[in-house]
């Protein structure tokens, strides 16, 4: 535990000195906030643009608060996911390539401690950023559109957190066997995208898989309760994360070549 704490602490100092602790929450916040605000200003923007003939009246249906928050999540699902992959792609690769990893492992540190110190820190950082952003988006939605109940926001939040943890885990997993951060980012996004695309390719199966997370969260926002498949999706996602973590630790132990 002492070793885990030391490495965990190191991760936070590193994130602070490299300013990841600031830019990541800021960027996620920006991505989430832009959705409700731009939706709010959409009529004004359209009115002021010159592309419309004078006298034309636009009747835009004002979206409900739940729809706005769902839009925010889908915005996060694309741009946010990419940002998470970018933020995580370097953490193992860099230390392995420059040799500082070797120097650490000449001490009694095992791969489990090492990987979990990174994983825990990244998960906390991203979930923290997501909490602030989603909270702010909720506030804006309530102020600008219609109110969304806390229960549905809370439920959708918990469900979507799993997606974020999954993306982090996939990126770390890829980092344990690729040596270039560009490759890590590419393959990770490929894996994550294939998971997401599954819901259009094989909707029958994907309904039980992590691919369905965004749909579930949206549904919860609209109806305040999830579908029958919620339990299955949560279970498969958690199982998938656990399997990735286990293989990663095992593989890293065997294949670390300095």
């Amino acid at each position, binding site marked *: 535990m002492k*070793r885990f704490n030391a490495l965990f602490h190191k991760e936070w100092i590193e994130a602070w000195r490299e300013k990841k602790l600031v830019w990541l929450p800021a960027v996620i916040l920006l991505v989430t906030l832009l959705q409700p605000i731009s939706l709010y200003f959409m009529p004004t923007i359209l009115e002021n643009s010159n592309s419309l003939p004078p006298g034309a009246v636009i009747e835009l249906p004002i979206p409900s608060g739940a729809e706005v928050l769902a839009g925010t999540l889908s915005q996060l699902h694309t741009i946010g996911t990419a940002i998470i992959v970018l933020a995580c792609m370097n953490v193992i690769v860099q230390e392995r390539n420059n*040799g*500082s990893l070797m120097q650490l*492992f*000449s001490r*009694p540190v095992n791969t489990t401690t090492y990987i979990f110190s990174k994983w825990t820190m990244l998960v906390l950082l991203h979930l923290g950023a997501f909490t602030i952003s989603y909270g702010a988006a909720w506030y804006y939605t309530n102020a600008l559109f219609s109110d969304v109940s806390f229960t549905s926001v809370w439920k959708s939040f918990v469900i979507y957190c799993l997606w974020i943890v999954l993306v982090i885990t996939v990126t770390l997993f890829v980092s344990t066997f690729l040596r270039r951060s560009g490759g890590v980012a590419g393959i990770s996004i490929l894996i994550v995208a294939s998971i997401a695309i599954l819901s259009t390719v094989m909707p029958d199966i994907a309904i039980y898989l992590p691919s369905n997370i965004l749909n579930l969260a949206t549904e919860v926002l609209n109806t305040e309760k999830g579908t029958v498949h919620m339990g299955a999706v949560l279970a498969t996602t958690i199982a998938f994360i656990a399997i990735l973590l286990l293989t990663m630790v095992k593989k890293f132990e065997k294949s670390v070549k300095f």
Partner: protein
Amino acid sequence: MTMLEARGLTKRYGKHVAVKDLNLQLKKNECIALLGPNGAGKTTTLHMLAGLITPTDGMIMSDKKVLIKDKIGFLPQYPTFFDWMYPKEYLMLAGTLSGMTKKTLKERSLHVLEMTGLLEAQKRKIGAFSGGMKQRLGLAQAIMHQPKILLLDEPVSALDPAGRIDVMNILENLKKDMAILFSTHVLHDAEQICDKALIMKSGQSISYENMKEWKGNRQRKRYRLETSDPLQIEGLQKLYKEIDIKESQKIIGTLRHNVTPNMLLQYCIQQDIGIQYFGAEEKNLEEHYIEVMEG
């Protein structure tokens, strides 16, 4: 007490054999140099001993028990740190990972910084360090947790002459507390602070030199003669039994049984050979090394 013992150590990468059947014994307070050309398997050997890679075959023990990493201090050939850290932070992280208690960390980190001459560089981030400073910090982190065994991979190759002498002095001091094994290309250093040398070539140990033994071996009548004019070898061959090194103006070898050094001098005077240097010569490591490499 045997601090570190390796028996039949072998490392294969596919068909390539990096280290083959290496035996090594490092006793308490002993210092051994690992010599050999590039690619001889020195680094692989050190990595195996440090527990960074698993040997294909053979075993590594310490005092008849399995070697644990707490006991080892390791300095890689290119020490790499986290550029955003301050030296003290790194040392404290290293110490914690090696199981040191919080109380001792601060004091010990300052102590090793002082030992390695980095006390003034404390306020700078490691990213701003020069190569030589990183090498020193590498040594500092290796000795941070007061290991019983110190494994150093070319500790002086990145240093300037003054730095090299510093590091050698530090090692000389450390010998009191730890058993040291280091690889180097500087034979002179190895000779000065080490008791023994293990010479490797293409993955195998080809010679195990005990320098301590040579030092007591002065009675062998080995003499070096340097002259200002080219030497006439025929006459000298009558006096020398064995000639180890022969250049046009230099000769080193063992005198014949009944020949005294004075007779050699006398001969030179008689022949009117201008003497530049004359003296008893211990066998040195460089000669051994070249001999072994060529043999």
